[in-house]
């Protein structure tokens, strides 16, 4: 019974605030590892009709109601303060789940695109996606053992990034390294936000 817990009353935080960061990248780029390095990771299941998932953006005509799909994503919670929570969402890597990205991207503070230099093309789609929607993102080059090390400038050129987009090298397994990746993207988001607030040319 619920009554058994009356002694454990905790005042709920006044105005909790939640923010989210996305972690994107190709299949096997280390998304799950990165999220798991900084937070307790949990699988999130969606089993919804395709038409419903595309609700905010898609014309659903012609999609019959029985088309359902199950997609699993990783997500983690980082409690920064009692009233400030950061959620990390690993975006589904497969292209056929693009429709899920739009919901995830809505209101996202920023995104990390994990890149594996052996398969750099895998992250092109994510880079395009965030560029087109104006979501601040940074590239985190996951330094896999055995992969040739490339300096960030080379990666920047290969991905044809805007000069302001941060590129960092990381080891997604290392907590400090993963933290650094997240800090980089939030700093970038803060920079972008400040630039947008300031009148052009100021």
């Amino acid at each position, binding site marked *: *019974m*619920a*009554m058994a*817990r*009356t002694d*454990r*009353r*905790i005042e*709920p*935080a006044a*105005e*909790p*605030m*939640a*923010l*989210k960061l996305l972690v994107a990248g190709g299949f096997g780029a280390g998304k799950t590892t990165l999220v798991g390095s*900084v937070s307790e990771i*949990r*699988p*999130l*299941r*969606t*089993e*919804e*009709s395709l038409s*419903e998932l595309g*609700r905010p953006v898609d014309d659903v005509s012609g999609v019959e*109601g029985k088309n359902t799909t*199950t997609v699993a994503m990783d*997500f983690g*919670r*980082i409690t*920064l*303060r009692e009233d*400030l*929570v*950061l*959620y990390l*969402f690993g975006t589904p890597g497969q292209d056929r789940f693009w429709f899920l990205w739009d*919901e*995830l991207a*809505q*209101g996202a*503070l920023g995104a990390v695109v994990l890149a594996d230099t052996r398969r750099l093309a895998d992250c092109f789609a994510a880079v395009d996606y965030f560029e087109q929607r104006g979501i601040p993102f940074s590239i985190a080059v996951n330094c896999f053992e055995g992969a040739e090390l490339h300096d960030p400038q080379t990666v920047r050129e290969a991905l044809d990034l805007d000069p302001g987009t941060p590129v960092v090298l990381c080891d997604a397994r290392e*907590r400090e390294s993963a*933290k650094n990746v*997240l*800090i980089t993207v*939030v*700093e970038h*988001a*803060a920079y972008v*936000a*400040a630039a*947008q*607030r300031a009148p052009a040319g100021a």
Partner: protein
Amino acid sequence: MASESDRWYDDAAGPVVRPYAMTRGRTSHAAEAKLDLIALVVTRHAPGEGDPPADDPDLTPEHLDIIERCQYQALSVAELAADLDLPVGVVRVLVGDLLEAAHVHIHRPVPPAELPDESILRDVINGLRAL
């Protein structure tokens, strides 16, 4: 034991109750637009206070579970889905019911068009550094 591999057990066999049975077949809720993945759900009654919602015949065990979990901590729609092992769509419908019946309230995230305050971003950065 030899036959074990040909059979599906537990989670592998899929849910005994199809997810949308818990919502009486509803796949969406009028309040759904408010229920972003990171919308935070907070129970209105303090634990043990007010009308015990367990008496409400409209509430299923899943509803009550959500009410109880959100008494102690604001939980996002995504967390509820993961904790209850239910699809996000189902949780949206259930939370929508609770919102309608005023058992919970929702803290919506910063609207996408508005950027969070600079001081909040600073807090996030400092919080991450301190992890």
